[in-house]
């Protein structure tokens, strides 16, 4: 088992400028021992996939509060697939109506975190999902 830290990209797809949640999660995951990159605002799904692949992250966390999640989150998953980054997990958060979650899950978003979520919840989700993957990849 490798002791390499989990690498996470926290990204803002689309035009939304609300970054409070994204920045809190980014800082929180860093304090939980992960290596974190924050994309900055206003990135296209293609740009996010590019950073994720370049930085070899284990997990991409998407934040959107503008209501564009139904279009943008699945597009990030597709962009990652095009770059053959099949084992990166993609999670999301923001102002997202609950009835949108099943659709997002189907589109490849591993989990959606709503307002009121604790950093610990997000961190342990990432650890649980990434550890087995990372262990497999790095030993193989």
């Amino acid at each position, binding site marked *: 088992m490798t002791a390499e830290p989990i690498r996470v990209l926290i990204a803002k797809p689309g035009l939304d400028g609300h970054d409070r949640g994204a920045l809190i999660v*980014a800082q929180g995951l860093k304090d939980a021992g992960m290596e974190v990159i924050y994309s900055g605002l206003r990135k296209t799904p293609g740009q996010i996939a590019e950073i994720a692949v370049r930085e070899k992250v284990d997990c991409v966390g998407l934040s959107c509060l503008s209501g564009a999640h139904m*279009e943008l989150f699945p597009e990030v998953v597709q962009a990652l697939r095009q770059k053959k980054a099949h084992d990166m997990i993609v999670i999301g958060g923001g102002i997202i109506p609950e009835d949108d979650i099943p659709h997002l899950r189907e589109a490849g978003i591993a989990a959606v975190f709503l*307002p009121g979520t604790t950093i610990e919840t997000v961190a342990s989700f990432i650890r649980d999902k990434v550890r087995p993957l990372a262990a497999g990849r790095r030993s193989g």
Partner: protein
Amino acid sequence: MLIIAQNDRPKSNDAAERAAVPQPEHERRCATSSGIPVEPFYLPDERTTKHDAEKIGLPGEYPYTRGIYPRMYREKLWTMRQYAGFGTPEQTNRRLRYLWKQGQNGLSLAFDLPTQIGYDPDHPLARAEVGKVGVSVCSLLDMETLLRGIPLQKVSTSITINAPAPILLAMYIAAAEKRGISADELSGTIQNDILKEFIARGTAVFPPEPSMRLVTDTLEYCTRFVPRFKPISISGYHMREAGANAVQEVAFAFSNAIAYVNDAVSRGLAVDRFAPNLTFFFSAHSHFFEEIAKFRAARRLWARMMRERFRAQDPRSCQLRFHTQTAGSTLTAEQADNNIARVAIQALSAVLGGTQSLHTNAKDEAIGLPTEASARTALRIQQIIAFESGTADSADPLAGSYYIESLTDEIERRAMEYIGKIDAMGGAVQAAKDGYMQQEIRREAYAAQLAFERGERIIVGVNRYRCADDRKPAKLRIGADMAKAQAESVARLRLRRDSNETVAALAKLDEAARRNENIVPAIIAAVKSYATIGEMCDVLRGVFGEYASTEVRL
């Protein structure tokens, strides 16, 4: 609660110091959101009482601690102004007319993100965002539709737009002119506050220097030709929403204000010529007494700053006029009905604090866009405060409260300290470029999150008193067909208009942007030729360059 060291007590409150007995171990320690310690009870402060007249004074008199009008809400209630906009101009026009019929006396336009960032609805970056957080307006044609049937001579309209502020202002002026209403008859406010976009709100388009030029061009143009329009609304609100505390909200907004005033003065505008038209926008957050004190402290600080720092002579230059919105970031998706109580308490603090206009949030804003029914209930909260509670009967009813006066003094003192720090960094433009305010806000936001996670900051229904099935689905949805409809509409416009005229107007805009002259007349001409917001912003992006938010490794 925060643990407060003895030497952090408010220095101006000797009497309170005497009243403070050693605190028993089991008792909660209390502090405001800004970390100002709260005593078990307050007594008069001997030093304060001597200076009462100078510091507190009368409503309508310098330094306006008690309000800017002698009779406050007896004479005129605050303006009930609900921020509204979604979908197409037709849809928002219907919502605006509905709100007008429900007794709302000021309009407030919310634009979608493509409009705020200067992209047409058929731009690849716009596609997923059209009509989502506001109405899509990309040309004069859309503005005409949006304002149809609304009496522009009678209504005051708040236009929340920043990077492309002069473009949306030009559209408003041109739409009115086409109906025979001249620019000097129009009243309203345009947000036009770009510094807080760099700091917190995230819709800056151009780099800081040309952005400041557009702000001041708009301010100068309004001062000369649209005199009843407030050319800027300097906003603490968005910085507060991003995590700032009450003191930072006031301090950062005023530091930004200093930058705008300096810029306008450097154009040769006399301070008393434009200062009476400056307006502010603050949040009404959860700590009830701190918020009331914040509004009072802000008024006094502004009055003193305008008189002492900028040598303003006109009393109106020293009067802080502000809009308030209840704090969206305090609303919860869980047990959304609880939000009605939160909003009512926050709105009450704004009224007790002497606001000039108010937006009360709808209960479902942590879930999605408000429905017609929830938007109506939000407005009713204000009407209940105005007509049932008696709060509006007497100006600044909490004046003289030992607690409120002590908090007012302390917020003013701490805000002045911050302003001094930012001055020493070379002012707000430089400090924002260096990321100073951004860092301060992030630190506060993160600390608040940790306090919430440790259970020290209680949010009812979220980390206490939870119950099953407490989330409700969002009702109002903006379909994907919206982007298609708006994209088709702008395509039709491009075919219908006289393209020679548009091309010539855009070329003139390019020249004006390159020259050292006020850009607003060239924008008005381009708007009248039915140039789109994307076309105009592309010209400006070409001349000014583009601001890009960069990737960071934490």
